[in-house]
């Protein structure tokens, strides 16, 4: 069993601040982390390995410092790590990103055939959820998105049964390997790194592939050139037009403030009052 887990290094969005005047991102000092959704993918891959044996190769596209993210994953128990890094990848949108990652996975598969690819359901900086499906299409892998549980996996039959989140319920699907799984969040809990793996991760020599090593065949399909989408404008939210009608507890009692508030709400929408009254059970 050879599993490739794709991850991305992202800025910790909880710590991103926007400059109040210029509306630009203040990136200084914002720590980079492994995209949190990807950890659910890694843990699920580790569980598959625990049960069925095999090997996990981590794959990441990003700047040289993204090596840290790969090292983190090695400390949890991944076997190998490859960083695809080249200036020509800069500015890639999801189409160009999936092309580069799919090319790298094809190159990895020349060393050892790939049975499964795992990704997180989306990243916390792009939030698109498009790269996983893109990789699957390019490699002709069966696509299983928003997977909440692997029900059954048979290496002999090369078959897998999974549950995936759908609208209003869960789909149970059976398919054949090779497949690509995008893992839903909160479906497992990442294990603790053990001492052996931490030491191994610290000493591990992460392989760095430029575009040639990654097996990119068509350079017009990577980076800015390979990206059909163009960002035309980045801006902050609309400036305020009217300030909220507020009452402060510095000047009124909580009771007065809430009574006034209820009055204002029901004056603005009398129909809502009737609806709420209709729902109220008379004591």
């Amino acid at each position, binding site marked *: 069993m050879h599993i490739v887990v794709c991850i991305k290094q992202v800025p910790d969005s909880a710590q991103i601040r926007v400059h109040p005047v210029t509306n630009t991102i203040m990136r200084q000092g914002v720590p980079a982390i492994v995209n949190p959704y990807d950890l659910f993918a890694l843990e699920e891959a580790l569980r598959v390995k625990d049960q069925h044996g095999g090997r996990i190769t981590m794959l990441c596209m990003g700047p040289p410092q993204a090596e840290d993210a790969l090292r983190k994953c090695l400390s949890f128990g991944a076997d190998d790590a490859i960083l695809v890094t080249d200036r020509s990848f800069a500015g890639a949108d999801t189409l160009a990103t999936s092309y580069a990652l799919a090319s790298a996975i094809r190159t990895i598969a020349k060393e050892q055939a790939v049975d499964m690819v795992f990704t997180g359901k989306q990243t916390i900086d792009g939030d698109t959820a498009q790269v996983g499906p893109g990789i699957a299409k390019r490699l002709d892998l069966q696509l299983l998105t928003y997977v909440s549980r692997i029900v059954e996996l048979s290496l002999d039959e090369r078959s897998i049964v999974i549950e995936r989140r759908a609208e209003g319920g869960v789909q149970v699907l*059976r398919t054949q390997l090779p497949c690509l799984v995008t893992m839903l969040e909160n479906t497992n809990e990442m294990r603790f790194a053990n001492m052996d793996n931490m030491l191994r991760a610290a000493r591990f020599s992460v392989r760095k592939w430029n575009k040639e090593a990654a097996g990119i065949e068509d350079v017009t399909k990577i980076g800015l050139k390979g990206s059909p989408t163009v960002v035309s404008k980045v801006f902050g939210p609309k400036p305020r037009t009217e300030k909220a009608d507020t*009452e402060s507890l510095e000047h009124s009692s909580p009771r007065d403030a809430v009574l006034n508030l209820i009055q204002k709400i029901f004056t603005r929408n009398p129909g809502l009052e009737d609806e709420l009254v209709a729902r109220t059970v008379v004591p």
Partner: protein
Amino acid sequence: MSETPPNAKKPAARAAGRNLELPEHLKSYKGVWVFIEHDRGVVHPVSWELLGEGRKLADMQGAQLAGVLLGGADEPLDRFAADAYAYGADLCYVMRDPVLKGYRNEPFTRGLTKLVKEGKPEIVLLGATTMGRDLAGSVATTLATGLTADCTELTIDPASRALAATRPTFGGSLLCTIMTLAYRPQMATVRPRVMQMPAKDSTRTGSIIESSLDMVEDVVVTKLLDFIADANSNKNHLAYADVIVSGGKGLKNPENFALVRELASVLGAEVGASRPVVQAGWVEAERQIGQTGKTVRPKLYIAAGISGAIQHRVGMEGSDIIVAINNDANAPIFDFAHYGIVGNAMQVLPALTEAFRAHLAVRARRAA
């Protein structure tokens, strides 16, 4: 959408000299398409919301609006098409095949890709649901065109006549407008409730264009074994709730979040939460409202202890009445709330719960 965050200062320079001109052979792409998502006999309301939005775009382009229906031979696609006309579609592309009963990526990708190649639409919109995102990502890759996820605003750029799709970026701290200038179709997904439900006009009619899939079950590798409907259907009510009471980090600790639940129970409302509260584990993820959670547009939205970051704002600013309770008079939420109480939410919430309870009880007794 860029995976690498764009440089906010010089987007023009970033786009210079590339992918900006529409090649001649793509200029024949015309019309706006909306993928109509349905499952087990019911159309997802996001499809009607998209028809409302698609109607505006089609009118701006002087083009036709089409609904796209893929489904099993025994599914009521004609009824769905009639509804699509009532919500604004001029025509429907319909593909019926037993293979298309119950969503699976492979046949749906094949089907929608085939329809696009035949019909050459300029714009294709899908709901950003687990089905729509799964399908959109696959189809856009197959067609090698641009796809913008989770748009909050769609319009036509007057200069290029291209679809200008605006979405939050950087985890919802800024907005960016994205265009696909040199490829067709231009694809976008929009989350449920982001766009308004259009008025239904059942007198409208339209025409159906039938197409075939040419795919047999034997070649479809993935099989749908079962569908387990959610037992707790409550979860799904949040996006379409009339009244929502939400809590944020300003409530200080998970115990205080009970105050939000109590007010919600008096109002028969759904409980919502901001991202930090969900990340801290106070509330289940299904309750999160915002860019990475649910989008809501209730008649009344009460936010307690929520500061109002863009991440949260884009998920609820379509609400009819927004009430903010926050002890920081300068919190951004007061910039877009309609009414506010500046004060400690732990004091205000119990008072508000009691006052609503008394008010509604008096009115209900009078009515009875």
